[in-house]
């Protein structure tokens, strides 16, 4: 859909009716605890629903079990191949660019700090990472897949955040509309799709136009499964550029929460990076990917590494050339990428399976206050600014 600032404003008032009704009913009937317990046993598509599951949850899980009817499976297969080719780059872009991009939208930063807790960003990172890995499995949309149940649970998780933010008066509805509204959901979709492609481009990753388009397509499918109203998400990368630029330029700015979340994120990554010598690389890479203005808003520390990191596209360019020219080199780098991604993910999940449970209360559930610490190359479309 071709959006204008006016059509986007209208999206601020709309949430996700199906999931919202389900969650409200579960809370009204006091069935959230039972639901969460039983849902731990429901983790693969096609599996029989656990006995004793509340009726409303039953109906929700049936209604959301299938991907949209319009899905082109050849396109999805191309997306999967794109992810296999670029998995380590995509993970890097998600971690060092997409997460800070969420924090640069002040109302999103405020919502995130109210939900996943200032001291505990690793949980959301682990959930996002596991979600992406599930999405890119060959059988993501088949019986036995872990992806579809994960989507169903995340959609309810978002609905429960809406429920709690409203009930606890943590959200200024008059100024900001509905919490996790349609505009913010599509904005999030842009951050994880076209903005990740922007970051890959900045890292010097060689992408085909077909690969980039299919990566975006896969996220568009996921967006609809996560509750974006059918037909509302941008249809292709050009429309995505327009939506993404309008959304970002309208809202992006500094905030106390954004800076604090970024500090937590950097600390978390520094824990994952072995030793301390390379710790400043984390901040330098974020600064390189999001640019100085955003990095200053988020108070990303400066260091001598800022200059050194700028050579990373040149270094990556060498690896990419090897990959382009030699099948053996491509295979070796693929294996290395695969290992790196899994190492990154397992250091975040620490062996847990993320359950995406519906939080009964925001702060306790999320640990707030806890002390735990190629030939046809694609280039991003130019910025689209409102006149």
């Amino acid at each position, binding site marked *: 859909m071709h959006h204008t600032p006016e059509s986007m404003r209208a999206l601020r008032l709309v949430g996700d009716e199906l999931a919202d009704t389900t969650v409200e009913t579960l809370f009204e009937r006091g069935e959230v605890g039972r639901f969460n317990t039983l849902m731990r046993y429901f983790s693969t598509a096609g599996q029989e629903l656990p006995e004793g599951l509340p009726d409303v949850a039953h109906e929700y899980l049936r209604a959301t079990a299938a991907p949209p009817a319009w899905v082109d499976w050849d396109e999805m297969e191309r997306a999967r191949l794109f992810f296999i080719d670029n998995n380590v780059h995509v993970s890097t872009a998600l971690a060092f*660019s997409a997460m800070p*991009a969420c924090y*640069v939208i*002040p*109302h999103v930063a405020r919502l995130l700090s109210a939900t996943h807790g200032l001291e505990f960003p690793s949980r959301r990172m682990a959930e996002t990472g596991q979600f992406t890995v599930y999405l890119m499995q060959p059988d993501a949309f088949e019986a036995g897949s872990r992806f579809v149940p994960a989507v169903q649970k995340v959609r309810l998780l978002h609905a429960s955040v809406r429920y709690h933010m409203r009930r606890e008066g943590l959200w200024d509805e008059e*100024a*900001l509309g509905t919490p996790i509204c349609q505009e913010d959901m599509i904005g999030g979709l842009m951050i994880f799709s076209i*903005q990740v492609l*922007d*970051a890959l481009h*900045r890292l*010097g990753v060689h992408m085909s136009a077909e690969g980039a388009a299919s990566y975006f397509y896969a996220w568009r499918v996921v967006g609809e499964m996560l509750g974006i109203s059918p037909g509302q998400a941008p249809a292709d990368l050009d429309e995505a550029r327009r939506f993404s*630029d309008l959304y*970002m*330029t*309208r*809202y*992006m*700015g*500094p*905030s106390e929460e954004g800076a604090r979340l970024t500090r937590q994120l950097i600390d978390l990554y520094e824990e994952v990076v072995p030793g301390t010598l390379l710790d400043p690389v984390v901040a330098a890479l974020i600064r*390189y*990917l*999001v*640019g*100085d*203005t*955003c990095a200053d*808003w988020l108070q990303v520390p400066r260091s001598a590494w800022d*200059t050194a990191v*700028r*050579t990373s*596209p*040149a270094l990556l360019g060498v690896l990419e050339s090897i990959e382009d020219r030699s099948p053996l080199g491509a295979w070796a780098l693929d294996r290395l990428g695969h290992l790196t991604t899994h190492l990154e993910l397992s250091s975040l999940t620490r062996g847990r399976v993320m359950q995406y449970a519906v939080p009964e209360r925001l702060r306790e559930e999320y640990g707030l206050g806890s002390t735990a610490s190629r030939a046809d190359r694609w280039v*991003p479309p130019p*910025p689209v*600014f409102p006149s």
Partner: protein
Amino acid sequence: MILERGSTTRLHRASGAVITVVPRRGWGNTVAHTGDGAESERVSDPVLIAAGAADLVVEGVGTALRRAGALLGRSDLAALAQDGREELRQRGRLALRRHARATESHMELLARRAASRGTGPGDA
């Protein structure tokens, strides 16, 4: 520097080193002009090349030694080291500029646009 005793050819260079070469049987001889007014005799190619290379090394070493000697006598060693560091830094900067991308990140362009429009946390 003497390559071999009892030679028939001597080459004099500005460095003061004397290179003595012996023509050997079986090698193709050629006429070598040293250009410094010394003897001009028939010298084989490989010998001439070896002599040239040796000369180059000797000149380099000689110059380096003279510079080192002069250096030790200087009182501004620290400033000199600072200059050297600065030169390396400048070289590094140029090298990085050669390799790094000149373009800004897309997010940076958007952020500047947002900042110029005065948008911020309260404008949502």
